């Protein structure tokens, strides 16, 4: 008993943040068969079917070979899906098992909790994005990067945005059904209709305008601009929108966390 340290220690928020990040990375790497492998296989199939088999008959899109056109969109799609699903499943699972109480009783501030979970989602999103990029090299000769700063900033900001959206979903979720409804019925349709596989310039004016209400269009196009130097929309507007969404989502998440929404009775 004498060896047990009973001297309180004044800790730092940085250590708490690193702890949450480490916990999150440990989680998604431990279950890599569920988290890392599926996007690699799914995206390989997209490349084979849409890129190779169908793409060879499509010809060019926006003046680019179809395979090259879809690569940025598919990378972005895997980043969005994985950033979102990592946070929503990890945070909801912590709520469900009540292990979230470990953080709630500790002095770690709510903004660190949010930043830690979002950081974990971003890391998984970026890792799967990197894997999909590597997979794409089997299907195209080489990847041309028009503006590396745009590529990096768009991918990081987009994964932050969707990790936060996943956090919000998990805060409201009461059952495992609730964490699959948004990805299935909202996120997937928006991503498929978000200009991953086609240029919105192919659409009639009316549907082009409707498409512009889909925020994913802006992210996919900004990202594609970073790679190929071509975009259906203004890259500046895309950055502006991403920033606005991040600020709104961060404010809502923090407000709900402080109120204890879905966590405290």
């Amino acid at each position, binding site marked *: *008993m004498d*060896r*047990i*340290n*009973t*001297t*309180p*220690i*004044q*800790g*730092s*928020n*940085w*250590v*708490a943040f*690193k*702890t*949450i990040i*480490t*916990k999150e990375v*440990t989680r998604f790497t*431990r279950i890599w068969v569920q988290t890392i492998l599926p996007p690699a296989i799914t995206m390989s199939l997209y490349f084979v079917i849409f890129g190779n088999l169908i793409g060879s008959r499509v010809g060019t899109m926006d003046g680019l070979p179809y395979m090259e056109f879809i690569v940025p969109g598919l990378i972005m799609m895997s980043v969005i899906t994985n950033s979102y699903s990592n946070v929503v499943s990890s945070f909801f*699972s*912590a709520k469900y*098992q*009540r*292990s979230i*109480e*470990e*953080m*709630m*009783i*500790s*002095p*770690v*501030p709510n903004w660190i909790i949010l930043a830690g979970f979002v950081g974990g989602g971003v890391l998984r999103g970026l890792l799967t994005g990197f894997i999909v990029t590597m997979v794409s090299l089997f299907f195209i000769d080489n990847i041309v990067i028009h503006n590396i700063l745009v590529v990096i900033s768009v991918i990081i900001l987009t994964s932050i945005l969707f990790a936060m959206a996943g956090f919000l979903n998990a805060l409201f979720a009461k059952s495992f059904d609730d964490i699959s409804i948004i990805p299935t019925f909202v996120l997937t349709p928006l991503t498929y209709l978000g200009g991953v596989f086609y240029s919105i310039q192919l659409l009639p004016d009316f549907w082009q305008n409707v498409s512009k209400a889909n925020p994913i269009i802006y992210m996919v196009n900004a990202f594609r601009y970073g790679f190929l130097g071509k975009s259906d929309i203004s890259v500046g507007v895309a950055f502006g929108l991403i920033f606005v969404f991040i600020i709104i989502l961060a404010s809502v998440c923090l407000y709900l966390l402080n109120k*204890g929404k879905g966590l*405290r*009775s």
Partner: protein
Amino acid sequence: MTKALSISNLHKTYSGGTQALKGIDLEVEQGDFFALLGPNGAGKSTAIGVISSLVNKSQGSVSVFGHNIDTDLAKAKQNLGLVPQEFNFNMFEGVEQIIVQQAGYYGISRKEAKKRSQPLLEELGLWDKRNSQSRELSGGMKRRLMIARGLIHSPKLLILDEPTAGVDIELRRSMWDFMQRLNEQGTTIVLTTHYLEEAESLCRNIAIINQGEIVQNTDMKSLLAQLDMETFVLDTQGLPGNLPAFDGYDIRQRDENTLEVDVKKGVGVNGVFAELDKHNISVLSMRNKANRLEELFVRMVEKGSDENVSTANGEG
């Protein structure tokens, strides 16, 4: 001296309208071993939930070592350790991982956390299991894991919510010993339990909560002194077929060789022996019929319930 825990006029009404706490006041001195008792649904876990920021209060104030949870929450949390009633760790995480992570939430570096966790896990008999997933542990080990987790940041106040529930007697005794030594080292402990023998042997002060109100808040000795009658069970030899009348004592036969006797506090039991001796009945052994605290507890809780029924019927 600053109180380890200070609760004033604490109310909690859940969204469904249930009034779990109806204005409780409570103070726990530094270094105390304090029992918070009450029947199921009395409000104990709600009170603990409010103290540890897991439940939003409706009204009132709570301070931990002088740090108000409304104005100085981080410092209040830094001083508080909680061992909850139900298992609330990630079942897929390892034992040491859970402890080190918990330390991390308190800002303790991984290196320091590992250094602190070894003696703690060894003391609680979990060191050999440090790499096991928590779901592989037995019920008793899971309870000890929660104690280790609650202590990793060396809190000055430790709240144990039924820490020995479902634990076998041998392990329970070793956990009592651990808690006592921890208290002797200066950690203030608040204990809730359904094993009243546990509270009686460990705690110096006690509060009994019933239906959201504190019905008793005193030191253990004064509380037990309120008992004016004790019942003893006597194992005897030579009991006659028909029990004779005993002068001055209500002695009842429980079975062939066992008697039960009520003795007023302060009267002593010599008279009982003398009376039995007169009738050639020898006593082989003697014990208290029930845990003394249990008797008082039942009495207070039943009294509280009766009063509430009377009030509800308009008789109050």
